[in-house]
């Protein structure tokens, strides 16, 4: 069964069409880049998959389940902004994730926090912006989920942190799960992707595996992206 499936998915904000007739399937075990310029509908699609938005028309499901309470057990979501409560300490954050997610691997999270030198007593508000994002990523990747939805995980961070984030994703995701990485920083993520979906103004304009792009078009995903979205 597909980890994520969309059928004729549309989302309108008033008269503005954020997503238009999006149909796609993402299989387990694949790392998929959801690529497109700003405003192309990447975040809207991820929010719809998380039940944070309601589709105007069409359907979306996660492992056959409509977005909601039951699908949240299957999805590990990294929002584009820091959403973890800043009053909590790192230890309390581990308690929080452990309480709500049965698939949360506390020992893995503790090891990653320790590797970063973050004591469990340190409060989130005492951490720098970059460290907060890393702490949030650690929580998300410490779950053995069926689908990881990562919205702009490397946006707004320095190159060294980007490498850390990508290695954390690759080193910790459940191999039987699908990973969707939304970004417009193609060159950085290209090396970890199996498939790509190009979104432009709410429509899917390309769906391909990275190997096909390299073999058939003879160019990198980054080069193809620049060609497709040339201003």
């Amino acid at each position, binding site marked *: 069964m597909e980890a994520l499936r969309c059928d004729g998915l549309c989302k309108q*904000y008033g008269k503005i069409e954020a997503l238009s007739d999006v149909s796609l399937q993402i299989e387990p075990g694949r790392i998929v880049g959801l690529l497109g310029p700003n405003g192309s509908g990447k975040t809207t699609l991820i929010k719809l998959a*998380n*039940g*944070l*938005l*309601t589709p105007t028309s069409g359907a979306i499901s996660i492992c056959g389940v409509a977005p909601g*309470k*039951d699908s*949240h*057990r299957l*999805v590990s*979501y990294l*929002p584009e*902004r*820091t*959403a*973890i*409560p800043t*009053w909590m300490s790192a230890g*309390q954050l581990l308690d*929080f994730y452990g*309480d*709500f*997610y049965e698939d949360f691997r506390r020992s893995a999270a503790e090891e990653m926090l320790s590797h970063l030198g973050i004591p469990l007593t340190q409060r989130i508000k005492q951490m720098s912006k970059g460290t907060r994002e890393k702490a949030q990523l650690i929580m998300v990747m410490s779950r053995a989920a069926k689908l990881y939805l990562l919205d702009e995980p490397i946006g707004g961070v320095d190159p060294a942190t980007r490498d850390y984030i990508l290695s954390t994703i690759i080193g910790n995701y459940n191999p039987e799960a699908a990973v969707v990485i939304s970004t417009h920083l193609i060159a950085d993520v290209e090396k970890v992707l199996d498939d790509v979906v190009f979104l432009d103004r709410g429509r899917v304009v390309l769906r391909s595996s990275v190997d096909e792009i390299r073999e058939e078009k003879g160019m990198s995903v980054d080069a193809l992206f620049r060609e497709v979205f040339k201003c």
Partner: protein
Amino acid sequence: MLRKLMKHEFRATARVMGPLYLVLIITALGTNLSVRGMADSGNLFLNLLGAMVAVAFTVAILGVCLMSFALMIQRFHHNLLRDEGYLMFTLPVSVHQQVWSKIIVSAVWFFLTGAAVMLSLMMISLDVGVIQGFFRGLRAFFQAITAYYALNGTAILLELLVLFFVGCAALCLQFYAAMAVGNSFANHKTALSVVFFFVFQFATQFISSLLLSGLDTPGMAQFLANLDFQLRGMAAIHAGIALMTLLTAIDGAVFYVITVYFLKNRLNLE
């Protein structure tokens, strides 16, 4: 899952309310000392210190009451409608559980705040005898009305507790509904939340007035006069509390439906 939500909600709020209760108790003790000795000591410094402690106690009472109220609003807004909403609304829990956890925890803090203020007021009394006298008087009062009206004190207390909880829930939901609707818009979320709060208040008052004026019609008066029931003594009190609880619950239910609908279908996190 509701229990877990409440656990973390208590964690988030206790770190604010706990220290405030501590300040309240300390200033109550200080005021007790002030009343006992400092105010009449004839020493200017002690007189001033005593007066300042008494003022601090008054401020602490105000602070703890205002904070329990502000926290009820702040937790809903920050935890569900701002950045933390991305985390909270992707937990494997229902929107109903999210809303109930906020209502129950706020009601508990309202209750504890009332209890803490009463305790602190008892603490400033001169000696234990005054407190003993208060409770003796309360017991005598209950004994007297029990003898006269056959009052079931436990039942009344439970009914009043239910009314208190339903009242707290309805109060919270009036604010939650306004915030849920206001935050469904793309811009001016806070301003619109305030506007919707007053719109809801106006609508509630308007509908209540219409219903009350409906009771004051000849037809309704005739209907009520023809009703063949009689309530005496405690039965009337029980019926009165039940009616108040029911009306408050209906008021709260309307705002609950609005809150849940907007959180489920019109959530608009920034």
